[in-house]
Structures are given as C-alpha cells and as structure tokens.
C-alpha cells in the first residue's frame, strides 16, 4: 500500500478548515500535544502539521488566486528518514506512512533541514520533531464507522478538495484523479518522489473585464445581469 493525499488546487478555497481540524485531532493524537507558544500573546504561533498558503498566479487581467495546502508528502525517497541519526524517523513498510518515534528523537533538527516541504516542526515543549501522521490513529480505527476512517483534513474539507487513498491501486479514487486531471508532484526536480499529488487549476475562461471608457447605463447592465441570473 502507498497511502497519500490528492489535493485539488482548483477547488480549494483556502478556508483553513483542514488546518484547524488537523490541529484539533492531532493535538490529542499519537504524536502528543501540538504546543502553542504565546497563544494569547502578541505573536501567537505553534506546531502545525498542515499549512495553507495563498498565491496570485499570473498578472492582471489573467490573474487568479490559487491556494496550496501543504502537509507531509510521505515521500517515497524520504530523505528525512535517511539523515536521522537516531532511527526515530521511519517510513512504514506496509503503507508508506512516515512517522517520528517520540521516544527516540533527540531534537537535532536535521530531518527538518532535509525536508523541502516544511512538513516537520520541532515542538519546543517536548524537544522532539513532530509531523503529519496521515491520521494513522484514525484510518485503522475499527471503532469508527468505515466512512470516517480517513484523515481529519479530508473529512472536514467543505469543498471536497482533499482525497485520501492508495496510490498502489491503479483503480483507487486517488489514482484515477491523478490520471484524469494531470495530477502533479511538488518540486519533482529534487527527486524526493512525494506520494501526495496536486491537481492543477482547470483552464477556465477569464472573468470579463472592462478596460475603462464610458460604461453602459446602470439599467442596461442590471437587465443583462438579471437575464444571466434568472433561469427561465
């Protein structure tokens, strides 16, 4: 098995719901608390497994906003595991999930240096490295109803931009999505071979823009808009 995520950059609206639900689930998950520093201070920050960043792609009038959520890619060539001197970082043989054994980590930061995706963050309170577990404590939990055995971020996504599945199975939902929508890897030139894939924004016609000059009278524009909106 090769478990991972497919993230749709076309439908992601950048609402950060996945960030919040990830933190909510994992702060009491297998990797222990996700410490917050100065939660009520001037500069609140803390450990997070999942972060969403928003970008403006291209220039006016062709510009559009693209949101890119990022968590651990569970790379096939996981250099973070190779550089770990203590053996605390490991990649599971059975499903390819990369985890950190909190009892072995000495907090040297080298694995976070080796990760190009910023997936690993040091928890200053425990002095250990923490990272996305692909909700390993959810996806195998037989106490949960089968539909809920998915990572917290996938379950919560209101625009259904996140998909979880097995990339080894060519007919799984994620493999089909990657095949049909030209799913891509982030920074393929580094050769980490990340399992998580991103679906690029669909090509869409640009929103009509007005290049200055005299506008039509307001009543005409209102009528045009009304004709477009009201379905007869």
């Amino acid at each position, binding site marked *: 098995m090769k478990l991972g995520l497919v993230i749709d950059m076309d439908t992601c609206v950048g609402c950060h719901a996945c960030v919040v639900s990830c933190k909510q689930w994992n702060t009491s998950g297998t990797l222990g608390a996700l410490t917050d520093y100065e939660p009520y201070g001037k500069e609140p*920050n803390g450990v997070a497994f999942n972060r969403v960043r928003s970008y403006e792609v291209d220039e006016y009038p062709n510009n559009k906003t693209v949101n*890119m959520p990022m968590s651990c890619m569970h790379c096939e060539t996981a250099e973070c595991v190779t550089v770990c001197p*203590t*053996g605390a970082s490991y990649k599971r043989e059975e499903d390819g999930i990369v985890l950190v054994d909190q009892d072995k980590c*000495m*907090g040297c930061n080298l694995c976070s240096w*080796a990760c190009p995706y910023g997936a690993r963050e040091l928890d200053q309170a425990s002095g250990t490295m923490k990272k996305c577990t692909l909700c390993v404590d959810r996806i195998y939990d037989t106490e949960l109803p089968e539909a809920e055995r998915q990572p917290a971020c996938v379950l919560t996504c209101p625009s259904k931009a996140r998909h979880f599945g097995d990339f080894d199975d060519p007919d799984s939902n994620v493999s089909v999505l990657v095949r049909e929508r030209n799913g891509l890897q982030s920074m393929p030139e580094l050769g980490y071979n990340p399992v998580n894939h991103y679906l690029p924004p669909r090509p869409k016609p640009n929103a009509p823009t007005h290049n200055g000059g005299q506008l039509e009278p307001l009543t005409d524009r209102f009528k045009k808009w009304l004709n477009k909106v009201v379905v007869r």
Partner: protein
Amino acid sequence: MHPAVSVILFTVSSGAGFGLILMAVALSLMGWVPGMGPGHTLVAILIGSVLATIGLLSSTAHLANPKNAWRAFFRFRSSWLSREGVFAVLFYPTVLVYLISLWLARDTGSLAWWGVLFGILTGLLALATVFCTGMIYASLRTIPQWNSALVPANYLLLAISSGTVILTLIAAIQGIELNVLSGLALVLLVIAGLAKLLYYIWIGKPQGPTLNTAMGITRAKIKILESGQSSRSFLNKEFSNQVPAQTVKQMRWVVYLAGFVIPAILMLIVLQTSMMVLTALAVLLLLGGLAIERWLFFVEARHVVNVFYGQ
C-alpha cells in the same frame, strides 16, 4: 538558515582541533619538522584533543532533547550525522593509546610500532570526522548552496590550514624551528582561500527549485498573497534570516582578510623572522575569521522552504 552559535563554535573548534591533530601526526611520523620529538607532538595532540572536545560538547547544546543523544550512534549505514558521532567517539580511545606511546617515547625519541599504527589511526579518524561534518551539510538536496563537493572540501581545507597555523604557534612556544611549519601553513592558507573563493563564486549563481516548480505552474508569474499565519513559525525561524545583503557582502571581506589574507601574510613574515607574537596574532585572526566564515555559511544558505513563503 538560522546560524546557531553552538554549531558555529562546534565546527570551527573541532575542525581546528582535528586539523591540528592530523597535521601533528603526519608531520611527526614523516619527521619533516627538524627538532620535533615525541614530547612536542604529545603537547600538540593534547591541545588538539581539547579543542575537538570543546567543539563536540558544544554541538550537543543545539539538541532540543539531549537525553536521547546516545541513540545517535546507531544509524551509521545511512546518516552522516551518525557517522560523525561514531568516528568522534572512536577517536578518543585511539588517541589515548597514541598519547601513551608518545609518553613512553619522550626520552628515547623513537616511537614503538604500535605507536605508529595508532598514530595513523588517530589521524585517519580525525580526517573522517571532519569529512563527515562537511557531508552532513553537503548531503542536503534541500539547500542548493550546500549540496556540493565544495562543502566537504572547504571543511577539510579549513580544518587542516587552521590546524597548521595553531601547530606553528605551539612549535614557536616550544622553541622549534618554524621554517617548515610556517611555509606549509602559508601554502595551505592560499589553497583554502582559493577554494573558499571558488565556493563564493559558485553560490552566486541562481539555482534550486522555484515557486513555479513547487506549484507545477511553470509558465506564469506567482507571488504570495497570504502565508496563512499571523506570526513567524518554526519554519521561518529555522530556515529564513533577515540579514541584509550589504552586511553579507561586508562580512565576506572580513572572511577574506581575517581568515586568509592577513594570516597568510603573517605566516610569510614568520617564515623570515620566526616571531612568536605574529604567529599568535595569526591564530587569533584566523579563528575569528573562521567563526564569521561559518556564520556566513549558514546565513547564505537558502532552504527551499523559503520558496513557499515567496522568498
């Protein structure tokens, strides 16, 4: 990259210590320095071991969870950090046996066969430890400025040249003739300086992944709108730095002058005059210059995570 003081102290101090040991072992076994007996080598090896130990101890200061540091010796097959730790620990019993053989030979002046053997082993372990330190950085594909054979080459050359300058000072205090040592130090400083210059020219080229390859949108301009966080996180604190380009430029001059040019000129004068004060001045300048060189090594390294923050 964030320049941690403990890592700067570690690499400069243990580099100079291991370089000193390597050169002392090599020169005394070859017998190239006239008047340098086992007693003199003994002092040099002891000082080198102290420098290396100060460095290795300070390296544990950057660990967030040092109680697990003993586990770092068990991934020798894959991790350069683990290899460095193993070689550094193997170094101690080896150097102890070598020191005993030097102690026994201090009156007769002739080293036993096992002394020679352990001398060679000590030198090789010192060399291996410095090489591993360089490879820890050079093995990271995420930092284009480090991912080069120039990095371990620089670490080795700087260790050997700074070690030789310190060995010259020790020899000056011991009253040994300085011609061979200061000449050798001069040559090594010039080679190390040229290698560092080559490195600075090489990192001047734009290289590494961009936001375009990160998002898979390769034919449009991309800029960041929102980082999604209201204050600096671990990723920003560890991987980005706000040192102005002007400061970096000025510091490079300091590195060239204090780290290479002035110590080389001082060694040239020492070659003619054998003045101890100038040797001591060269050591001080060189160590200061190397500390700044190491600080720059971190400051100028640009981790690819910065790409996602539009930097």
